[in-house]
């Protein structure tokens, strides 16, 4: 089986891995470089649990051919916190009880980060639209929407914030 070398940055750090033929990005992140934060939900692009940012844009890592991120910048939930501090979005999720089982949370966080990076003061409708590709079977979405709105008010969109 052919292995293709892939060099990319993951949360600002240089990474190199071998992508096997047909391997998706989610699998390469989890098994190739050991970042377990993006989740495997459906493998069909329906649930959003594997959402990561590629060059700042939200993408479904299970539907992305791993070798296509060569030379690109990938961001996952692992990179949100810095040192012992958590990201304002994570903080807002915690305070609003926006995670129950937690399986959708990494995808929700990345979808929310993609929104706030582009639109620091979103409306409620903007938030609903931004997470419309992410399924949560626990919360009924309201706590998540509230958390994202609260984070936007507390400055989650600041660079490195």
């Amino acid at each position: 089986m052919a292995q293709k070398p892939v060099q990319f940055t993951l949360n600002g750090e240089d990474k190199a891995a071998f992508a096997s033929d047909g391997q998706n990005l989610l699998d390469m992140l989890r098994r190739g470089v050991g970042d377990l934060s993006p989740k495997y939900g459906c493998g069909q692009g329906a649930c959003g649990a594997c959402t990561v940012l590629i060059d700042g844009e939200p993408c479904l890592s299970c539907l992305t051919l791993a070798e296509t991120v060569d030379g690109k910048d990938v961001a996952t939930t692992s990179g949100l916190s810095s040192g012992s501090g958590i990201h304002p979005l994570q903080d807002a999720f915690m305070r609003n009880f926006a995670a129950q089982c937690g399986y959708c949370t990494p995808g929700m966080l990345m979808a929310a980060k993609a929104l706030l990076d582009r639109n620091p003061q979103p409306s409620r409708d903007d938030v609903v639209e931004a997470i419309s590709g992410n399924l949560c079977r626990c919360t009924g979405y309201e706590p998540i929407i509230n958390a994202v709105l609260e984070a936007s008010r507390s400055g989650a969109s600041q660079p490195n914030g």
Partner: protein
Amino acid sequence: MPVRVETFSQVEEAARALSSNQKARIYGGGTILMRSVNEGDQSFDTLFRLTDPTLKDIRSEGDRVLIGAAVTMAEIIRHRDLSFLADAARAVGGPAIRTTATIAGNLLAPPPYGDLATALVALGAEVRFAGQGSANVPIDEFMRDRESRKGSVVTAVSVPRLADPTALRFLKVTRVKPKGVALMSIAALLPRAGGRIDGFRIAYGNMGPTPLRVAAVERALEGSSLDEAGITRAAAVATEGLDPPTDALASAWYRREVAPVHLRRLLLGQTG
């Protein structure tokens, strides 16, 4: 067995290789194809990845805009010359799908997908293929024999530049809010000439094997002024000549029942 991936920097080369390889598929955005890869689909064994930068072009060509095959929904939404397509592009998937799903992928997507393609049918788009220079195939013709075109490589889609972006109306009917796959979608091109509709085109998605034009409705509305009487006439023939599918979302009967209602709302502009 895992699939092989071959990368092509020139689309013409990929088209030549595809014509001699029945078990190869073009990897565009991957939003449909990668699902099959993840499931271990054995009907293909090779992915052709195209890195030709011309496939990402959006450029003017006379009174039309040429959109490269690999242009994504998100790129269409952001492009100032394509604002008339933004509603239909936004109807596709969630944000993370729209950053990767391509216009050519949407043209070839099986039901229940193809929201943008439905708008392209109403718009009178034309499709361009590798190895055929700047010869364009009208989209109606493309959709009629879509299955047989799977061995060719789409390079671009040409659309008329609408002077009035509101002349193209789009409606997606779903059962899940805010997002779900389309039970049906409707696109209508309503160019106005002196208060009357001239050159009306209407297309449905998910009411047949591909997005298709609805000749009976077009005939009913041609030359009318979109008044109550005209819209009632159009709604009465909303599914004439169609054979809508029965699938997990809805039966053919249900689609026939609701199509006139949604068509009416679209024509009255009550879709907000």
